[in-house]
Structures are given as structure tokens and as C-alpha cells.
């Protein structure tokens, strides 16, 4: 950790799955536990850190989030909260899923929490058929099996198709 603070002005390069490179200040990258662990264990000798699961559009969003949170002092929690809600506003489900994937992979807990919460809020009152489509899940129940699970929990489906 001490070395991370000493080298505060250093930068590192992250490479997205589609080949775009991002130059990031170290204190911003430290918002990610994955990158922090890599830096702590001296894996940073490589010039470029590849992030094969994250495309450039998502990585840009993730780094925007990390920069805001790294630069803000702890006394600005209110400002960060409004940044967070503005950050996810108008984001479609595809982009939210990509953010969850990226935050999960890079271990950025705050970002994972807000993106997961936004998805949970969106699907909370949706019928299961619609949730299946949103998550691209294939229904492997037979109609009889599905009806049986539904019947077992009939109360939870009141008001749903």
C-alpha cells in the first residue's frame, strides 16, 4: 500500500477487449481491487494490462466512475451519491449488464452495488417471462413443470400474467 501512495503520480495502461488502450492514473486504478492486487504483487511490470472481458465503451464508463470516486474526498458523500444516480440514469439494460460484468471482474464494489441495484429495481415488478427475456435465459421447464412451480407459490403471482 505504501508503494502505491509513493507512486501516486504514476500511470498505467489498460487495454479493452476490442483493443483500445486507456492511460489511467494509479490512484484511479486503485478503486479496483483486482488492479490493486496486481500492483501490490508487482505484476505491473507489463506495459499494458489487458482486460479481455471489457469493451472500450464499458471501460470508459468504469474509469469515469473510478476517477470521480478516487478524486472526491470522503466529506463529499452527498455529491458522490448524486453523481452515482446521474451516472446510471437513462442507461439501457445492455450497458448495465456490461457494467455489472466489468465491476464484478475488476472488483469495484461500489459500482457493482449501484449497477446491481438499478437492475434489481427494474426487474422487481416485472413478470418472470419478461425477466427471462431481459437476462436472455432459455426456459428449460416443460409447461407442466413450470405450472407446478407456479402453483406451489400461487400467492406470489397475484396480479401477474
Amino acid at each position, binding site marked *: 500500500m505504501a508503494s502505491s501512495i509513493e507512486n501516486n503520480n504514476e500511470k498505467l495502461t489498460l487495454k479493452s477487449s476490442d483493443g483500445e488502450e486507456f492511460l489511467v492514473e494509479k490512484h484511479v486504478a486503485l478503486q479496483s481491487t483486482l488492479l490493486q492486487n496486481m500492483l501490490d504483487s508487482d505484476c505491473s511490470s507489463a506495459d499494458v494490462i489487458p482486460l479481455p472481458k471489457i469493451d472500450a465503451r464499458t471501460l470508459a464508463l468504469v474509469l469515469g466512475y473510478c476517477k470521480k470516486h478516487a478524486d472526491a474526498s470522503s466529506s463529499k458523500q452527498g455529491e458522490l451519491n448524486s453523481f452515482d444516480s446521474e451516472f446510471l440514469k437513462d442507461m439501457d439494460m445492455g450497458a448495465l449488464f456490461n457494467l455489472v460484468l466489468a465491476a464484478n471482474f475488476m472488483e469495484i464494489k461500489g459500482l457493482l452495488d449501484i449497477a446491481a441495484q438499478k437492475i434489481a429495481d427494474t426487474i422487481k415488478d416485472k413478470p418472470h417471462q419478461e425477466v427471462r427475456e431481459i437476462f436472455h435465459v432459455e426456459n*428449460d421447464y416443460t409447461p407442466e413443470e413450470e405450472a407446478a412451480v407456479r402453483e406451489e407459490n400461487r400467492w406470489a403471482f397475484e396480479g401477474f400474467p
Partner: protein
Amino acid sequence: MSDYLPADALISILTLLPPKSLVQLRCVCKTWQSLITSHDFICAYLQTPLLLLRHTEKYGEELYSLRSDDADFTSLRDFKCPFKTHSGCFFRVVGCCNGVICLSDDFACYNYTIILWNPSIRRYLGIFVWF
């Protein structure tokens, strides 16, 4: 499962849903059904502690509500007790653990019923005890 998300990311989302949604989402597919009912998922889900309040507005009626364990004490869900005691009196709350409430109908009688009740998913188990 999902083309989009690995299991741990999916769990991060599903643990944020209310019990009623989760009960319904067991119908999505077999993998979701086993995930939602799995020991690991339930343990992750129970990480947020809640408070249970019992109160009454008239004699013989028991009302319960789940509250957040913070300064606001926000009411999250309200339940009416679906069981009746033999004496028309109240149940004794023996204890509460992981969302399951243990009720005992042992006021003013020599034999009694013990009920294990999970109001969030509307399941219960009754045991009749003789003395």
C-alpha cells in the same frame, strides 16, 4: 443460465430483490430455481439483518411487520398472523432465526401447537404437542 452474467454477478442482483419477486423468479428456469433455493444464496440473502415487530390493534389480532435495522425503522412488509390460538389469546413468540418465527400456542392450555413460520415466503410447519 444467462448469456450475460456469471453466477456471482447474478447473485449480486438477485439478493437485492424482495422475497415475493424471488419466489416468482423461480419460474424463470431450472438453474434460477436451484440458485434461489440454494443454501449459499439464502446465506447471502440473509446478510442484511431485519427487525420483526409484533403489534396489535384489537384483541385477538396479531400484526407483524419487518423493519429495517436503522434509524428510520422503515416498515418493509406487513403480515397478519394467519393462525388462531385455541384460547383466542396471543401466541407466544419463542424466537426468531433467519426469517423463521417460532410461535407457540401455550397460553391457558395443557397441550399446544408449535408453528415454524416464514412469513416472507408464506410457508409454515405446525407441530402439535401433547402433555
